[in-house]
């Protein structure tokens, strides 16, 4: 069970509160987590990564275990603490005005 914390705007869009818990089959990577998130909450498609390019949106960042994972390969394994559910994967909107 992987825990994901979404920014407030996306929690509102998906009409959820608190953390999201996802079952991932196969390797636990950023791509697998976002795939599972979009499958469970289709209204989030296009909001975390671009619809067409599938690239992470520039003002969104992935953090876990006090480290910025945003520039890791989307297919790199997530930290063990995230895979075990001890720590959440944080999807964060960058502080950029507004």
């Amino acid at each position, binding site marked *: 069970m992987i825990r994901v914390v979404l920014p407030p705007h996306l929690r509102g869009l998906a*009409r959820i509160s608190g953390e999201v818990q996802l079952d991932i089959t196969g390797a636990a990577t950023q791509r697998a987590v976002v795939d599972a998130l979009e499958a469970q909450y289709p*209204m989030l498609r*296009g909001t975390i990564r671009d619809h067409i390019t599938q690239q992470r949106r520039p003002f969104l960042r992935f953090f876990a275990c006090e480290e910025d994972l945003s520039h890791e390969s989307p297919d790199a394994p997530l930290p063990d603490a995230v895979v075990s559910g001890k720590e959440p994967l944080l999807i964060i909107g*960058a502080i950029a005005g507004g």
Partner: protein
Amino acid sequence: MSGVRVLVGTRKGAFVLTSDGKRTKWDVSGPHFAGWELYHLKGSLADPNRIYASQTSGWFGQIIQRSDDGGKTWHQPGTPPGEPAPAPGAMPKGDSNKFAYDTSEKTGKPLTTHQFYDGKQHPWEFKRVWHLEPSLTDPDTVYAGVEDAALFRSTDGAKSWHELSGLRGHGTGPKWQPGAGGMCLHTIVLDPGNPQRIFVAISAAGAFRSDDAGKTWRPINRGLKSQYIPDPEAEIGHCVHRIALHPSRPNVLFMQKHWDVMRTDNAGDSWTEVSGNLPTDFGFVIDVHAHEPDTVYVVPIKSDGEHFPLDGKLRVYRSRTGGNEWEALVKGLPQSDCYVNVLRDAMAVDSLDKCGVYFGTTGGQVYASADAGDSWAPIVRDLPAVLSVEVQTLP
């Protein structure tokens, strides 16, 4: 009893303002989609309960929302709340937010780049939906004007979108370049007498017309003069801000250009300036009285360098002669220390017996006039910056 519903898009959410036909007491609901930019909301003439909204964010991209109950509840088309995820192989959901440019082998080849600020060619990149224009007859058909400039259409209630690529592909597309606000298709006008005819406007490319329901297009900018481009009478490159028409006379269009208020009597084949005695002819909004085809409204703004009213006085100007002769409408509007702007989609008229006129400001006020502009009062005065105002006249 008849009434009105005013749909307001702001920098931080949407608001729905409702009143009876007297238009003196208002109910305010919102913010809907709090924290998001609502570029535009518009209701269907064919079904007033159907409203489309463009919800967007520099962080999270583009969302299309739809209401089927007059703005009380909203959902992303094709993805109702609580519905289970699609089965494998089923039509994917979330497609209502997907605006994919046509890159097909047949029509996509000439559509790959446009001119950028540096004069070089730049790929088209979707950023947001500026304007949603529901069909005049079918609630499930709606057009979207997007940045980078292109026209999309949905025929399934905004569940999915397809580009009308003849616009970008008609020949001048590679010469289009962005204005200061981006390269956006911000105006879509449907001809009520001719379902084959569509007008659009793009900053900073100009106005275009289709006579075959969006399949093919041509520029309609003859007569526009823009001093800041190398060829002031070029076929494209003009910064058109807004176009409006009266339904009874769809060959007559009024335009607020970057500078200049213009008029055409032949559906855009040629334009003449009708700025007349306006104190400044820069501005964004323009609209036409619901019952008087020659009565036109603008809000003059000082200049492109100073986006606020002249002398700190917020004045709507009305022409009852189809342009050239303009009168200032000031009753109820601030006449000192007012330095707001009125953006291109932020004016609308209702169709009650005495035409109502509405506009919103970047200072968060929405003003209403229930007497065709003779007097004004704020409905609300402390919203986030207003991006768009539309009104529905209800039975």
